[in-house]
């Protein structure tokens, strides 16, 4: 039986971690994800989980300890944000390259400088090429649900890759909303027992992990990693189907909102989608056919599915809460635009950089985006390929 609660995104993630009950959790708390570890450490202190909580001296050590524990054969979770994940950088690639199923609760926050503790996506989008699967969450419910599903995805024999579950710092992590918790035993049954593929502590099957891998094998192992990312997409879909059977809450590769009959569309991840849906309702009432695609996945990037969902549109604006300084546009925009390139009649696709450092995406910003889309759809021309919004000009 589901339990209905009013809680924050951080508490929801901590509660999911409690229910997952990992063997090891190594972390170095950082704003805005601090509360995840604060609450999880209470569960450890109260003895409601069996987790070995490793308190380390930095995030680099946190991810290193997670890697060691996962290599030993344990189920491992951690939580971090922004500069914390940046300090893990070297180890992120090692976790993925060693094919260790580690799950990270990532509370999205801007990277310094200037120093800022509020939301943007420069942390996770920066880790795009690290080999981690990335699941994005609009609200606390999705953050909770994604974290539970992440365990299954990560540990699947076809995948064996680490997964980060992203939610927006403060906007979601510290806001209280209504959501539903599963029972502990439902979660335990859903994730099942962990069977490591190679475990250093399995003395009957001795293995060497992390050995030198030069010109004659490195690329073979990277080819395997690429394949695992490819195979992750159907696994993510299958896990979501099972999750829906248990909860009634449907997840896929993305969520659409009034997209099927839309002429113009917006693409945006995480909490911004909530605001955009509200404004779409306004425009729909005026008879303007606008829709939304909210990616759940950025890595792997399910190109075909996105093209199928967006290909019929006349114009698209992709919102990036991160800048790739000096690039043509934001990273999500570039990838969506490239994905649509092979269509015989492709939508005009532009990008906006918004909300850096926690700047709110307000009603007027969404209206500006939609009004412009309507103009582009009519004329087939755009003014600027990518511009900053939510900024004082």
């Amino acid at each position, binding site marked *: 039986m589901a339990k209905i609660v009013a809680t924050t995104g951080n508490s929801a993630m901590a509660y999911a971690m409690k229910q997952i009950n990992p063997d090891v959790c190594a972390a170095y708390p950082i704003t805005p994800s601090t509360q995840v570890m604060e609450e999880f450490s209470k569960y450890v202190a109260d003895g409601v989980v069996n987790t070995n909580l490793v308190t380390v001296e930095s995030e680099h050590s946190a991810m290193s300890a997670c890697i060691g524990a996962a290599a030993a054969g344990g189920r491992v979770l951690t939580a971090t944000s922004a500069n914390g994940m940046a300090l893990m950088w070297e180890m992120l690639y090692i976790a993925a*390259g*060693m*094919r*260790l199923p580690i799950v990270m609760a990532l509370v999205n926050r801007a990277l310094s400088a200037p120093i800022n503790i509020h939301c943007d996506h420069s942390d996770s989008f920066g880790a795009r090429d690290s080999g981690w699967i990335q699941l994005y969450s609009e609200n606390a419910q999705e953050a909770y649900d994604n974290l539970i599903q992440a365990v299954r995805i990560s540990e699947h024999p076809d995948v*064996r890759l680490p997964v980060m579950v992203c939610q927006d710092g403060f906007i979601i992590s510290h806001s209280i909303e209504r959501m539903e918790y599963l029972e502990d035993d439902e979660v335990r049954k859903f994730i099942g027992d962990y069977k490591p*593929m*190679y475990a250093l502590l399995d003395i009957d*099957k*001795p*293995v*060497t*992990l*992390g*050995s030198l*891998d030069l010109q*004659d*094998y490195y*690329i*073979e*192992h990277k*080819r*395997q990693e690429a*394949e*695992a990312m490819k195979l992750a997409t159907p696994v993510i879909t299958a896990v979501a189907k099972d999750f829906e059977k248990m909860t009634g809450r449907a997840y896929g590769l993305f969520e659409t909102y009034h997209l099927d009959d839309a002429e113009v569309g917006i693409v945006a991840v995480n909490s911004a989608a909530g605001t955009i849906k509200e404004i779409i309702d306004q425009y729909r009432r005026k008879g303007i056919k606008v829709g939304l695609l909210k990616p759940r996945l950025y890595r792997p990037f399910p190109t075909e599915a996105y093209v199928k969902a967006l290909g019929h549109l006349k114009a698209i604006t992709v919102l990036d809460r991160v800048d790739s300084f000096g690039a043509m546009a934001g990273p999500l925009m570039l990838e969506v635009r490239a994905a649509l390139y092979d269509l015989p009649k492709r939508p005009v696709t532009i990008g906006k950089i918004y909300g850096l450092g926690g700047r709110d995406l307000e009603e007027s910003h969404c209206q500006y985006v939609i009004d412009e889309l309507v103009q582009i759809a009519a004329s087939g021309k755009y003014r600027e390929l990518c511009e900053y919004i939510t900024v004082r000009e």
Partner: protein
Amino acid sequence: MFKLKNWKEVPIGGAVDQPGSAMENKTGSWRVERPVWNSEKCIHCLRCWVYCPDMSVNTLDGKITGINYDYCKGCGICAQVCPEKVKAITMQPEQ
């Protein structure tokens, strides 16, 4: 040389799941000079066996029996540490 495997054949993530698999890689081919052991001069002090950075000095019941050329890379340490008055190992160029 042993056959290099394709990406579908090797364990994921660079795991080495067969203990002692380095045996398959016969690194003796790297050698430029080979140690030649003279059984008549050898006093079986085992200094070469102790110092060999590989495991390329063969022994049986505490006595040297020869050099394992499958893995000896010809570093010459064995010849160097062989006592001055014995010099049972000499380095000779590989042909």
